[in-house]
């Protein structure tokens, strides 16, 4: 891997925040998988295990005025951004919730004020959409940047190409992160493309390409921060490949027997959260007590949120037909 370790520019507090947000992401994911096994989650569950550093690190490098279009393994980005955890869990439990009112599932949520653009299931679609958001920012004289994500499978959709090229041709303030977790459902990278490194795609669009260790949250943060800076001064898009491993099945009803065990072991040893924790402890930025306290706080927060979500009502049947169209002008 060609990762360069960048000069450390993050404060202790920032590092601890990254750690905390990854922990939170992991805890939510664990909880959701428990709820799923209990039969309480409606619809598929796409585990975030392995993606915490990419999702948290990237979203943390943005400003609140920047635009974010997460994909299905970006719970972390939602949480960084301040999307409401209780509402997110209510959404997964098919309860009435502020985001979709139970009309849509998974992380198909967004918020106009938080500048989070909702994804849909169709992969790749968010790329042109986020490029358009970047265009709007430029038109409105803002110095905002738009960031979106794509999997190692979905890089082969037409929308990846049209969207990234559109952003490049118009030199838009746009960042695209490939979350390369080495599998697209059951299909390994080697059957998706003839590429050894996905970052090679960058040169086909005339944009810089950066490859980072996707399990190193600081590396992800730094890469995105640098890309955002470039974007803000008008230097156009950046393509970032963040390499990780999908640590569970495609969704929770996939046992992923097609994944070689060694791969999981290898990447299990590189767990992004444990790694960060070791660093913080080793460098004396955090004590074991601090860590334990943090984990307990997070566990409590997630428990409460899950309880709240479970207590929410299902949506009213009558609400099914309302709101297809926006009112007025």
């Amino acid at each position, binding site marked *: 891997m060609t990762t360069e370790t960048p000069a450390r520019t993050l404060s202790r507090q920032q590092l601890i925040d990254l750690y905390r947000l990854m922990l939170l992401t992991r805890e939510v994911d664990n909880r959701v998988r428990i709820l799923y096994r209990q039969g309480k989650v409606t619809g598929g569950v796409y585990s975030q295990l392995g993606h915490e550093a990419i999702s948290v690190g990237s979203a943390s490098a943005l400003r609140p005025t920047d635009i974010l279009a997460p994909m299905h393994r970006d719970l972390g980005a939602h949480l960084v951004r301040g999307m409401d955890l209780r509402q997110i869990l209510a959404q997964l439990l098919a309860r009435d919730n502020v985001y979709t009112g139970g009309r849509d599932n998974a992380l198909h949520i967004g918020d106009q004020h938080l500048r989070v653009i909702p994804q849909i299931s169709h992969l790749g679609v968010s790329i042109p959409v986020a490029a358009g958001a970047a265009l709007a920012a430029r038109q409105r004289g803002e110095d905002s940047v738009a960031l979106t994500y794509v999997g190692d499978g979905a890089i082969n959709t037409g929308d990846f190409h*049209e969207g990234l090229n559109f952003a490049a041709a118009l030199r838009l303030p746009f960042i695209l992160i490939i979350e390369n977790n080495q599998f697209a459902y059951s299909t390994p990278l080697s059957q998706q493309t003839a590429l050894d490194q996905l970052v090679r795609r960058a040169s086909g669009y005339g944009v810089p390409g950066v490859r980072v260790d996707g399990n190193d949250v600081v590396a992800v943060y730094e890469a995105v921060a640098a890309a955002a800076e470039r974007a803000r001064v008008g230097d156009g898009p950046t393509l970032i490949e963040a390499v990780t491993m999908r640590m569970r099945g495609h969704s929770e009803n996939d046992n992923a027997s097609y994944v070689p065990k060694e791969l999981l072991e290898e990447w299990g040893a590189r767990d992004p959260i444990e790694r960060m924790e070791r660093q913080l402890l080793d460098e004396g930025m955090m004590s074991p007590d601090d860590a334990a306290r943090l984990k307990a706080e997070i566990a409590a927060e997630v428990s409460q949120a899950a309880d709240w979500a479970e207590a929410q009502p299902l949506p009213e049947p009558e609400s099914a037909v309302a709101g297809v*169209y926006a009112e007025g002008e």
Partner: protein
Amino acid sequence: MAEVTYLEAIKTGLREEMQRDESVYMLGEDIGVYGGAFKVTAGFLDEFGPMRVIDTPLSESAIVGAAIGSALMGQRPVAEMQFMDFITCGFNQIVNMAAKMHYRNHLPVPMVIRGPSGGGTHGGPFHSQNPEAWFAHTPGLKVVAPSTPTDAYGLIKSAIRDNNPVLYFEHKYLYRRLKEELPGRDYTVPIGKARVAREGTDLTIYTYGWMVEQSLLAAEQLAGEDTSIEVVDLRTVHPLDKETILRSIEKTSKALIVHEDTRTLGVGAEVAAILAEEAFDMLDGPIVRVTAPDTPVPFSPPLEQAFLPNAEKIVAAARRLAAY
């Protein structure tokens, strides 16, 4: 005020909306320097600058997707398809991302996709299609198809001001063919409202687009045979104006549906289904459709002429139905 063509009416509407609202902008292939394949946006780049008149790469899905993204940020994009036939390349963005956004996420997506559709110019199977029915079948979209310069003018304004994705089908055969004097700058045509283009008592023709002209010609001819035809110009093909549709059948009791699009599941099928369900008691005869046959649009003039509905074919069908 001088008379303007259908094309100039669209252009005037677009320009006035651009002037009125800073968030309105245009994107598409060859719309800037070149002014568009049909010159609908000629001069816009000079007037509004490259930030609001954007020549894009050859990427319909990116055009639509970018329009959606910018609309979510408060802009009001007007995306041009060089020909409406190419809208199929942006299909997924339209029907899945744009159409479902408000229902799923309460987020308005104020955007317009517009461009030339329809036949009559020997454009062949890929420059003559009438792709409105696919979108009329898609909840969350609005679909309009003006038949006159005045409606073209009033509807482009309403489309731009609407908070939903609106597909605006121009008819390229009408571009330089029809002329009218335009009403004032404040004029709009409400989306969702049909227009009685000619009053009559014996039979109603439900139609839209180019076929309004052909239906009016047919009605005129049949007036000479003492058959009084009402012509309802649907204008908005989705959502349909049921009220006007039903009000007319109450008067005439006979329905002839005319459209240029192919027959099966063309917009006329929905009009027929509405009438057969909600106006059954009023019907004094079968609901007849005059449409293109279920084939691609053929290129060579005699083939295209055989394919397209026209006044003559409408007259023949109306005569039979009136006599029923």
